[in-house]
């Protein structure tokens, strides 16, 4: 009888703990998309979050240095733009910083190609991180990793 009571109290406490710890998925996805690594940080995996943030941001900005801001181009490079937008805030900042007074023209060269690859891969890596964050909050997956 006493052990059943103890088990019941433990289950209730666990349920209460799970309720408190549950993070809303939409907030996590939004955070992980806007700031690379923020989703992991929010889940308490701070070291992973920092590594992801620094790596993705450096890759993205290196791509912009290689190919200039014009590579974020929804008009002439739709496919690359879709990949770049997955990078979140760095991509949005790049798009916002473009000189809107001048018409966007198609630009060519190896620097541009490399820049598109760098920024696109940075965006796709961020998508991988978003999927990982979603996997970690899913109850079906064991997410007992710690930093």
């Amino acid at each position, binding site marked *: 009888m006493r052990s059943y009571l103890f088990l019941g109290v433990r289950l209730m406490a666990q349920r209460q703990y799970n309720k408190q710890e549950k993070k809303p998925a939409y907030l996590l996805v939004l955070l992980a998309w806007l700031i690379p690594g923020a989703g992991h940080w929010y889940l308490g995996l701070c070291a992973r979050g920092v590594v992801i943030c620094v790596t993705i941001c450096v890759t993205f900005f290196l791509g912009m240095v*290689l190919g200039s801001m014009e590579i974020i181009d929804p008009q002439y490079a739709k496919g690359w733009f879709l990949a770049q937008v997955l990078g979140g805030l760095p991509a949005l900042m790049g798009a916002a910083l473009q000189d809107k007074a001048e018409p966007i023209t198609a630009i060519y060269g190896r620097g541009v190609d490399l820049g598109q690859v760098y920024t696109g891969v940075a965006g796709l890596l961020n998508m*991988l991180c978003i999927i990982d964050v979603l996997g970690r909050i899913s109850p079906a997956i064991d997410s007992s990793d710690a930093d």
Partner: protein
Amino acid sequence: MMVMMDMHLLAQLFRQPMDVPTTPLALLWSLPICLSIALVYKAIKIRNFSPAVFTREVVLLFVTIVVFLALVALVLLGIAYLAQR
């Protein structure tokens, strides 16, 4: 004034595409992206996130990617050589 000049120089960095020559050395530009992929992938996948284990795993994955890229390049070079004969 100095800050304004620095900001102007920084802005110039993002305004003109970099001139990357079409030489074999330009292939080295694939190394930073391989490192990025190795860093992010291992940051997600590794279970025990300690600096020593993480560094070892990242280096291992980076070397694996580079070696396989080199192998693919060799195979493609061989195919191109055979096609030209």
